[in-house]
């Protein structure tokens, strides 16, 4: 169990390495030959140590237990940050929430959180993927400013591919322009 923790931590560090070592020359291309032989259907889920397989983004909402025992209504219980159209600015009403999460991560350095960025369906899917990444990055920045370690926070963008609310109304769009915090165990 302990060894598993370590391997997760190390791989997360590796994944985030580019963040802290900007300007370094990165090794050219991580073409994974071992994946080359993997034919046929997609492998659901990730290998141990990929740093991505825990609770995260299960399509099915098969949520596992909550690592933080936050009482309902407290800032820590709030895991979704909403954004204005075409914006990655953190709205004032979410400052308190992110402050609480940042402080929690600071005092629990073994805890990891994944921030998923999402957009509404308007605009081009690939462009939206980049917008979703901006939102996830903005949340990460505020968490780090509030004490979280950069290696505790992983970001991933799903763009418009995983709407929280189906439909094409203003309401649905507002629900979908979001970043979700997923604590990993």
């Amino acid at each position, binding site marked *: 169990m302990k060894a598993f923790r370590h391997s997760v931590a190390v791989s997360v560090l590796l*994944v*985030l*390495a*580019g*963040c802290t070592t*900007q300007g370094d020359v*990165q090794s*050219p*291309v*991580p*073409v*994974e*030959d071992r*994946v*080359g*032989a*993997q*034919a*046929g*259907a*997609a*492998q*659901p*889920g*990730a*290998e141990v140590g*990929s740093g*991505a*397989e825990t609770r*995260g*983004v*299960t*399509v*099915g*909402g*098969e949520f596992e237990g909550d690592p933080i025992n936050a009482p309902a209504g407290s800032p820590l219980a709030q895991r979704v940050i909403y954004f204005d159209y075409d914006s990655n600015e953190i709205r004032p009403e979410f400052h308190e929430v992110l402050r609480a999460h940042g402080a929690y991560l600071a005092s629990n350095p073994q805890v990891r959180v994944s921030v998923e960025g999402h957009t509404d*369906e*308007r*605009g*081009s*899917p*690939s*462009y939206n*993927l*980049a*917008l979703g*990444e*901006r939102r996830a990055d903005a949340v990460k920045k505020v968490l780090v400013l509030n004490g979280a370690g950069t290696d505790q926070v992983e*970001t*991933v*963008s*799903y*763009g418009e*591919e*995983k709407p929280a609310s*189906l*439909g*094409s109304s203003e309401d649905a769009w507002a629900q979908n322009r979001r970043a979700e915090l997923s604590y990993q165990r």
Partner: protein
Amino acid sequence: MTKTRNLLSLALLGLAVALQPARAAINIDITQGAEAAIPVAVVPFVLEGGGTPPPEDVAGIITNDLRRSGKFEPLPTSDMLSRPSRFDDVQFQQWKALGVDAMVVGAVEQLPSGEYQVRFELLDTYKTSRILGKYYRVPATALRALAHNIADQIHEALTGQPGAFSSQIVFVQQVGTPPKRSFQLVLADADGHGQQVILTSPQPLMAPSWSPDRRQIAYVSFENRRQEVFVQSLSTGERRVVAKFRGLNNAPVWSPDGRRLALTLSKDGNPDIYVLDLDTGALRAITQHWSIDTEPSWSPDGRTIYFTSDRGGKAQIYRVSANGGQAERVTFEGNYNAHPVVSPDGRWLAMVHRGDNGDQIAVMDLQTKQLRTLTRGPLDESPSFAPNSAMLIYTANSGGASRLATVSVFGRADLPVGLIRNPVREAAWSPR
């Protein structure tokens, strides 16, 4: 060896440049001819002999193909006064009176071997002459492909431009609803028939792209809860990861020579365009800007890459040398233009254009810079050109439903692609 190849390709480029002005002049004529659809009649093929009727309606497939191209207006069968099956039986006066410029007649007969013999003739009603006439002998399973092939021949004979009806598409569809939703990559004929699922994943799939030789598909998969770019062989199903950097790994598109992928990576903090050499793994940054740079598309000569960037504040389309360097802005109309796609003939630039009715597919004539909106909106996206540069496939969203449709570059024949029952994300039309 490489040197010789380079010299050869340089010589070919020189030739292409030299031919450019002449070709452009011809193109203008074709454009004007194509703006009005040609009235045609495809007479239902007669069943000859006593065999089993064919499992496919050959004339019906030809009719649908011609209609979908936007260049033809097929006469409804209910308006036909007779149903000839050969040149000698046609009363041309009758068809001229119906305003038909050209007509297709033919017959199908089952042979003792079980195969089908298909005969067709393409006739000019005004000259009362035969333009094309052929016999084929095919198994029942090949009748659809034959019908598309005949439609291609008719298209070329009447417009001077090859048809695109024998091509294929790949698209991403969603099956089921959360929590049981899955994503599939599907290969199909351009008219939606003959679907084969080539990949199923519980996580999103995005941005499929064909290799120029039609043998491989590049795409983005989230199966490992992050973005990774895969290249998959269509014949064997084998695949490999070619990009899995931190952050975005998205929007892969094959270079015209098939040896490189342009793609979007954000490994250094924000999204930029890169070119990945598929043989050596060498990676080259084409843009380096603090803005979002994404959705690359190659010009057919491989020298220029068009892309989306918000470096001016809003998403607009830019272009840059495929070796990198200074980028130049291409679109100025409207405050959102994204997902540029250059047509295979290099004449058009398709895009998602935010117009009066939301997100609509538009094309820009790269010579005159004129922009034409083709679709109704309000949530149209992901344009992809047919191999003959005359049509586009795109995704139209409305009320949470999304479907594929095709439209001609002149905005004619905006028609849904049939037989697709699941919500569709993005599609890519195959090369020839």
